[in-house]
């Protein structure tokens, strides 16, 4: 039996992927937009719906970035509301572990799991910069090197809280008057480096016991955290070779944590452009890329690598001759850093621009492209399936470029072809997200290795 493909829908968000200038682009705030995308995903029998998160408006050169979609509603609140208008679709929220506390977040996630009948998921992200911290009581309180320590202990603490009510804690016996089987439900004590808390959790066990844990973050620490603690990874490795390498690396880390390769799903974020012919799809993709990377956006994206004010540069002209400034504070804030070694990346970009004769904008279009699947529905279905069967991924988080209709065509035209090939479900077999993802029951926290 071929591997089954996981599919998730990313609500188009705050980045230059989302083309807001298109006449078909609707509101990114109105609840109706969320309902449309979620219902489309559920019509397509997707595993889950996915929301990203940013906790401070992005800035560049000290000013609020105004070229991309700005503004998004609160993740957990939207997901709880979506639980009312969907029945099977998983509901995954990106929630920063640095600017939240385990007691509160564990309670919100357990609540979402109850309110959705077992469909909650948490994408654990770890931004710790003081720029974001300026919106919180905490402030920028934590060194970057500690953020995965906090995240791992956070997830472990959350699991302890989720398990703090015994499975049979609720007797609810009207005749005898026993509501509880024991007097101290939800009792917990957690003493650790990051959290030193004790008391009683308020939420009885939720349908999944542990909401599904996703991780996004690519460093070795991030991968190790995922291998120890996550059920799935949201990766950004969109090519076959890079995908396979990442897949091998991450899955090989699992045994050390007493886990099987199948316990951690790899789900890259990808985009899809469809056409009736390959040429039409390529043409459409080209047009979308030029909308995504306007001349102004091209300069701003270049600045993010160069870390210098490049506003004087011609977007159609050559790359700057100077190297990126690695000594200064980041010119771009509120955005996850994409380039571990800016100087090396700049050299690659320069070489590429020279080789292909590209100006700044075309170079940016080329190097920031994540249009992974372009073609006819048949070609796309085939390539996606190949990608999964060749162990470059276990499935995909589809990132449409339009709100909220960006997945309509995929669901109508590609999903049936994946079903024909027997690699995608034709109905939901289970009710919980764990069941959709083939994850099996939650692993009790006692079976997860404690942090050092």
């Amino acid at each position: 039996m071929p591997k089954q493909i996981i599919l998730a829908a990313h609500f188009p968000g705050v980045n230059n992927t989302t083309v807001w200038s298109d006449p078909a682009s609707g509101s990114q705030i109105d609840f109706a937009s969320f309902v449309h995308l979620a219902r489309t995903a559920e019509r397509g029998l997707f595993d889950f719906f996915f929301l990203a998160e940013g906790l401070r408006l992005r800035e560049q050169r000290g000013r609020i970035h105004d070229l991309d979609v700005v503004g998004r509603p609160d993740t957990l609140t939207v997901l709880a509301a979506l639980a009312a208008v969907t029945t099977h679709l998983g509901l995954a929220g990106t929630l920063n572990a640095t600017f939240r506390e385990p007691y509160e977040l564990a309670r919100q996630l357990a609540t979402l799991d109850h309110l959705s009948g077992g469909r909650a998921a948490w994408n654990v992200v770890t931004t710790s910069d003081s720029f974001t911290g300026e919106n919180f009581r905490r402030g920028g309180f934590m060194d970057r090197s500690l953020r995965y320590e906090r995240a791992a202990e956070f997830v472990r603490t959350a699991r302890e809280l989720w398990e703090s009510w015994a499975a049979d804690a609720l007797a609810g016996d009207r005749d005898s008057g026993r509501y509880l089987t024991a007097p101290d439900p939800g009792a917990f004590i957690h003493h650790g480096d990051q959290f030193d808390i004790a008391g009683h959790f308020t939420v009885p066990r939720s349908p999944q016991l542990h909401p599904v844990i996703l991780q996004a973050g690519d460093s070795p620490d991030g991968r190790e955290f995922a291998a120890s603690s996550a059920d799935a990874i949201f990766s950004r490795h969109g090519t076959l070779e890079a995908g396979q390498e990442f897949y091998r690396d991450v899955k090989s880390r699992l045994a050390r944590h007493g886990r099987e390769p199948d316990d951690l799903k790899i789900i890259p974020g990808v985009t899809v452009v469809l056409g009736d012919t390959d040429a039409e799809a390529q043409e459409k993709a080209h047009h979308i890329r030029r909308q995504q990377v306007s001349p102004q956006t091209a300069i701003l994206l270049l600045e993010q690598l160069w870390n210098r004010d490049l506003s004087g540069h011609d977007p159609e002209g050559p790359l700057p001759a100077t190297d990126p400034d690695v000594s200064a504070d980041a010119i771009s804030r509120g955005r996850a850093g994409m380039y571990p070694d800016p100087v090396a990346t700049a050299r690659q970009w320069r070489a590429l621009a020279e080789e292909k004769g590209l100006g700044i904008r075309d170079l940016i279009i080329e190097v920031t492209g994540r249009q992974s699947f372009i073609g006819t529905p048949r070609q796309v279905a085939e390539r996606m399936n190949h990608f999964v069967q060749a162990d470059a991924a276990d499935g995909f988080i589809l990132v449409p470029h339009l709100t909220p209709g960006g997945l309509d065509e995929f669901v109508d035209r590609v999903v049936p072809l994946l079903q024909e090939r027997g690699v995608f479900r034709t109905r939901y077999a289970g009710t919980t997200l764990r069941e959709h993802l083939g994850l099996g029951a939650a692993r009790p926290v006692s079976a997860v290795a404690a942090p050092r």
Partner: protein
Amino acid sequence: MPDTTLHLAAALDGLGWHPAAWRLSRADPTAPLSSRWWAALAGEAERAALDLVTLEDSLDLQSTAPDGPDGHTDQLRGRLDALLVAARIAPLTQHIGLVPTTSVTHTEPFHVSTAVATLDHVSGGRAGWRPRVSARRSEARHFGRRNLPALDPAHLDAPETVRLVGDLFTEAGDAVEVVRRLWDSWQDDAEIRDVATGRFVDRDRLHYIDFAGRWFSVKGPSIVPRPPQGQPVVAALAHSAVPYAFAARHADVVFVTPADAGHAAAVVAEVRAVEETVGRTGPPLRILADLLVLLDETPTLARRRRGRLDDLATTDVGSDAAAFTGTPGQLADLIQEWHRAGVDGFRLRPAVLPDDLTAVTRALVPTLRDRGLFRAGYPDGTLRALLGLSRPANRYAAATA
């Protein structure tokens, strides 16, 4: 701007406010863990055109003890996050206001602000919010960030206690101030989608709130555009001078707990005086009196049911609000009397759910309507409009205009 319409709210919690409610309720004892339960209750309240429902919450387990758990096994324990419950039922209702409680002592004002703003977006302008102070050490221990001294309910006027409570309410005031500034941090027309210049927003219509206080500072702007109501409705529960002042400074609605009509008049006078003292601007507080209600067709049936509940309970009702036991007609009399004493409306706490809620919606409300005291349905509009509150101007837009 006199507001003569009677406002009616239902306070939803567990299976009702009586500690033995779950013994007599027809509902499954674990129903409050399911969304169906909350949707059904909100739908019931909406069919009677109540202004709003409130959802109780706390950052620790229900308890009859002043601090920490009480070891009881015979009472309902465990509950869900109220704000998420409100969001879950928002798409299933159309008119009724949804007012969850959240603690402001241990939470991040930024998160609370975006969550309530989002509740307003997903409900089309029906969000309210009841900020609540967490004074219990048991709650503080769940966060491990600060130590609170034990609060002895028998000595609330001890100087340390007065200082502590004062600080907690001042901090809560800062939290509400931050939340409100964040709601205004986007002007209504900040999203411009100007294709010609490639700009999605006009950054001059986005504002840093630059709040710096004793306990925290917050930069802003919000990540959520200004909610439909501009400012969702803020409600505070208050029993005494310090919380009255908190409400007068920071809230739109105050829930109070008078013992009788005379006391209601005194409470209203005190609240109005405090509004004066703190220099409240904008419309006067909507004052809603809290009442725990147990209703039945005859006074005897009501008393008998009350007696059964009291017998089943191993603790006192211990209600901060006056408890009413009687017929819907008798309750209508009381409501009329207290309304004349100056309260703008009532927040009714059903003793047993759903029974005492359906008695309110199906018997009390028609009686009030017959007497010309209550609306027949919903006018179009937001929760603010329903409460007779206009949509506030944006403080930053005003400053830059």
